[in-house]
């Protein structure tokens, strides 16, 4: 559709241009093709179904190479001999989980451990969607959320403001306990941590709420409805875009970093001054005329 719109725009501007005839012809052909596609659903379905099958197969190949060692050849999960989970089953996690885990670089993990850390993603966008398609084909689970679920595009400013206000309250009730009041992250039991969530893309935040990555609780649509998830994301984006009114934020960690700055910078600076004030000034060997030193 976008391509179509763009050519339409060009058309009006270059109406009298030399290539106008060509463009009209092209438009005609495209329209015909589009209409045909629209009115012959059976054919189109089988076409896209085939494409989808191809994508799933591609995803399966990637999965076998990069994921199967921990998650099993068919995503059924792998238990170690000791009985602990090497990789959990992926049969019902859905495409959203894959998109989040692989898209934020958490998967594949560098080595097995309690909690995967965010890093540069190892796969291209196309490969991620192939993988997601494969894992989604294994069972149920939430799909990759639609952009309109988390984007405030097309909303008026006052609607956005209302959304941000609601989102802030939901954020403070559900998220700050682990992720801290400005999303700087926090500690969890036994070396676990709730990661920093500022600057994370809206889609990934939505997916994280939906799927509960690692040890995080899920916030399914029955828990926090989609509209309210959007509100939380709007609030977080608002935090990202809000200027810092009060100077450097010191990591947004609360009183610990503030105390550290007070002692090191504040007191350090003042003690430095005290040393200067009490230090001896430079002396000269010369004597003042007529003065008895």
């Amino acid at each position, binding site marked *: 559709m976008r391509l179509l719109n763009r050519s339409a725009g060009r058309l009006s501007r270059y109406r009298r241009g030399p290539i106008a005839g060509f463009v009209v012809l092209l438009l005609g052909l495209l329209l015909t093709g589009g209409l045909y596609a629209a009115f012959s659903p059976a054919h189109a379905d089988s076409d896209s179904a085939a494409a989808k099958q191809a994508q799933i197969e591609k995803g399966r190949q990637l999965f076998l190479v990069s994921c199967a060692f921990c998650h099993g050849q068919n995503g059924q999960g792998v238990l170690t001999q000791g009985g602990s989970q090497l990789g959990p089953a992926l049969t019902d996690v859905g495409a959203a989980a894959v998109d989040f885990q692989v898209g934020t670089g958490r998967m594949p993990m560098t080595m097995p451990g309690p909690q995967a850390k965010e890093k540069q993603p190892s796969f291209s966008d196309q490969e991620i969607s192939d993988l997601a398609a494969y894992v989604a084909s294994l069972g149920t689970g939430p799909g990759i959320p639609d952009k309109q679920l988390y984007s405030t595009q097309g909303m008026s400013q006052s609607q956005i403001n209302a959304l941000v206000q609601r989102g802030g309250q939901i954020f403070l009730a559900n998220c700050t306990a682990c992720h801290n009041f400005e999303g700087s992250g926090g500690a969890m039991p036994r070396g676990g941590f709730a990661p920093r969530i500022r600057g994370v893309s809206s889609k990934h935040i939505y997916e994280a709420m939906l799927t509960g990555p690692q040890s995080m609780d899920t916030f399914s649509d029955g828990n926090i409805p989609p509209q309210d998830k959007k509100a939380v994301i709007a609030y977080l984006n608002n935090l990202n875009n809000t200027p810092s009114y009060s100077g450097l934020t010191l990591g947004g960690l609360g*009183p610990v970093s503030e105390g550290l700055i007070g002692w090191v910078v504040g007191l350090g600076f*003042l003690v430095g001054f005290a040393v200067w004030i009490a230090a001896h000034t430079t002396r000269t060997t010369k004597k003042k005329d007529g003065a008895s030193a």
Partner: protein
Amino acid sequence: MSSADVASTNGTKPATVSGGNKRVGTIANWADERLGLASLAKKNLRKVFPDHWSFMLGEIALWSFVVLLITGVFLTLWFDPSMSEVTYNGSYAPLRGVDVSSAYASTMNISFDVRGGLLLRQMHHWAATLFVASMMIHLMRVYLTGAFRKPREINWVIGCFLVLLGTIEGFTGYSLPDDLLSGTGVRAADGFIKATPIVGTYISFFLFGGEFPGSHIIPRLYSMHILLIPGLLLALIAAHMMLLVYHKHTQWPGPGRTEQNVVGFPMLPVYMAKAGGFFFIVFGTIALLGGLFSLNPVWKFGPYDPSKVTAGSQPDWYMGWPDGLLRIMPAWETHLWGHTVSWNIMVPILVCPPAMLTILILLPFFENWVSGDKREHHLLQRPRNAPTRTAILAALATFYALAWTAGGNDIIAIKFGLSINEITYFLRGAVFVGPVLAFIIARRWCISLQRHDQEKLLHGYESGVLVRSPAGGYAEKHLPLPLAKAYALTARETETYMTEEQMAESAANYKGRFPKLRARLQRAYFAHTVPNVTVEELHEAQHHAEHELHEMEAQIAAGPNRHGPTQGH
């Protein structure tokens, strides 16, 4: 020491008397005829204060307090200490329409609708941070240098109460904005009060005017914060300063500095300028901190709501150590005859901090009881020359620091990739082992520093000049210390100890109970200190040094390296 030593002049005198002085004279005359201030002023205007950087740490606290008063007065102009519910309708859009308390709404108003209000708030809070911090390092300085000894014990006690009051003042202030963080602090405080045996629940209901949080706690904390505690602080600070002036400041030993005098610069003009200038520096530093570093961003925390909480909920740093003890305390609760005794709260909050304060207050009296010393002391001791005292502070400070660390265990865990559980287990042991280790290490360290001093006195300091002997060996030339330095190093007493029998024979100083304990403590306190060098040792060392120097020079003159650094010797 004759009275001629009390100088009446201080150098540069202007040649001519300007007209301004006449006017000063007239005003002074007018004032003196009504107030009779001249006799008081004569004594104090040229009062001598010694100069040393460590003497200005308390001044940081004093000036921070003044800044607190100034910024605090400004804040009261806009702050509304009420918990009645209003709908926030100010400039910060994400909170508009949210039900908040008037206290929180007015804090937001100060931050977003009063120009410079956010700066004032942050300055007030930074000044509070510095106020308590500088009191603490001032306290440590006074203890480590022995400035608390007779006649200054009362001032030490006043100082301890100032630290306590400063901490309470800080906590009440932290609670006023009624944001999520301060409310969480008050909630924890309610838990502490409820853990008090027998009366706890009643105190909680009286303090909060009913069930937590009620509608009374902020107005009540406010009147404590702006009236009761500042009044007490002001009175105690005044007493602290008056005693300082009466006793005259302590000084470091050095040439011309004795127990009978105080050497330094006169109040007018030098010390007044230095102190006054330092006020502006402290004020300016706090303004810079307030402008550059964020402190308690209440708009991000949102209004207090008892159902909400944030990761990294911590008190301000000075409440961090009891909070840390609270975190590492095992879950001990006793249930007896239908009652609950919460050791897990009482020990870290209701027992430890008062115990720490009591220990602090008693430190001078304890040392005095052990030493039996009844003399006045105006010359300071270097920390190394009182190894046991230094070690005691090292142990206390280590305990404090470890408890403090526990108070930030979650932040430490995420910043260093550690587990809060493991940090907690480690600290549970470390708060007991750490202070003991610190005591031993600090004492050994002091003793070896004392030996190092002695080495310097008897063998000279390392000149940095390498000399090669004819045999091909290298040696560093040691030079004797300058007289002033040598004097400063030796101007100390050697602390000795007595056996129980000696004590019994000795006069009035050792009356009282526990003679055995006292003798053992005295031995433990003073036995390890390295004795001061004697006159004989110094003489011998001098002869030896001269001899060595001559020999060395002769070798250099005779040896192959004729270009050696022999000039000036």
